[in-house]
């Protein structure tokens, strides 16, 4: 005689499925797990009202004020902004000589490069910018770079936004006609001045029309032998920066930074 006369799988025919075990009987296991909670720190309970919490809140508001609350950006515009932002960072890094043509696939992008390549290059920029700034600007007790870390990049982004610099197909920063040697010198000085050492005394006779700040920058950069003057004692601050000058200066800058890091 058969023990079960009904179907083998009753729940497939509208019957009730046997109830699975829906709780864990091992309370000890759960107690141990709860005790091992990596975020069990009681101090985190009131984190929102702590100094850290308020600081984070303020930074969210700063970001959020770019758009009214509850209003998403148009996704196409968002994407465009992301690509443009990444491209600007890349171009900035190209321009300050942090990045250029590291390998075949990672040629630093022209602005029209695809978003993926741009993103990859932007990551590279971040790494290098961190390395450059690491020694002096890491906030004690954290892995975060301090607020001055990206000053160089932001200066360059500004230059990009103003149309001063662009990128060539070969991945080199190319100066447009409006980038003068003085502007380039002041820009290098803002980015790297505090890390450059004077290696020779320089003086030029054609810096009289420059502002105090730009004159200092020119003398600093030339004194560090990054951007050289002409043999006749002139710097030619208003001359357009040539591609050759730019290439040479970036190479020397690399050497100088490498030497100072060593």
């Amino acid at each position, binding site marked *: 005689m058969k023990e079960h006369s009904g179907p083998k799988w009753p729940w497939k025919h509208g019957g009730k499925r046997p109830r699975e075990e829906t709780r864990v009987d091992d309370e000890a*296991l759960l107690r141990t797990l709860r005790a091992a909670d990596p975020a069990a720190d009681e101090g985190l309970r009131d984190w929102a009202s702590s100094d850290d919490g308020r600081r984070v809140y303020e930074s969210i508001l700063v970001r959020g004020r770019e758009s009214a609350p509850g209003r998403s950006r148009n996704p196409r515009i968002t994407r465009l902004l992301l690509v443009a932002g990444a491209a600007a960072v890349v171009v900035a890094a190209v321009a300050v000589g942090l990045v250029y043509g590291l390998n075949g696939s990672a040629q630093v992008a022209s602005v029209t490069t695809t978003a993926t390549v741009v993103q990859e290059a932007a990551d590279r920029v971040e*790494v290098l910018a961190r390395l450059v700034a690491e020694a002096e600007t890491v906030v004690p007790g954290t892995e975060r770079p301090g607020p001055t870390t990206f000053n160089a990049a932001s200066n360059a982004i500004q230059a990009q936004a103003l149309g001063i610099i662009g990128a060539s197909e070969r991945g080199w920063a190319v100066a447009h006609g409006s980038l003068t040697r003085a502007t380039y010198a002041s820009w290098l000085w803002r980015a790297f001045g505090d890390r450059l050492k004077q290696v020779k005394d320089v003086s030029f006779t054609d810096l009289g029309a420059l502002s105090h700040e730009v004159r200092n920058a020119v003398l600093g950069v030339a004194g560090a032998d990054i951007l050289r003057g002409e043999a006749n004692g002139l710097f030619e601050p208003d001359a357009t920066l040539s591609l050759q000058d730019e290439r040479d200066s970036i190479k020397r800058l690399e050497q100088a930074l490498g030497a100072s890091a060593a």
Partner: protein
Amino acid sequence: MDGTASEGYFERLYSAHSAEVLRYALRRGASHADAEEVVVETFTVCWRRLNEVPDPALPWLLGVARRVLANQWRAKGRRLALHDRLAVSGRRASSNSADRDSDYPELREALSSLKEPEREVLALVVWQGLTHEAAAAVLGCTRNAVTKRYLCACRSLKAQLSSRRT
């Protein structure tokens, strides 16, 4: 909702849930600095999509935080790979897990042997204290799937622990 009301609502959300979002990121293995970054990103999304935030908001916020963390890991993976390619001995982001690992070493080892989805569901249900339904909202799956994954995780964990003790 006008601007002032929106800001008030947003601040209430932040006060009520930011610590939980921070804890969620810490529980998923982020360093404190990264966890704070997750809070910033998550609540920035919340600000922009304030009209879409459901009630209760916590599962929705944790769902956003989960995606933010995933993006962060992807970016970090690329950065670390890049570090290796550049052969630079830069400092890598240190996890704060080293301190935690000194406590409950057996449990830590057993947890690390679980699959990531199982660890994730344990974190949500046991540590975060969410119901299976809320955890399902975070993970974007059904409640039954969460229950199944949770039970599976508990059984695996128990088996791992007992095998290590014998």
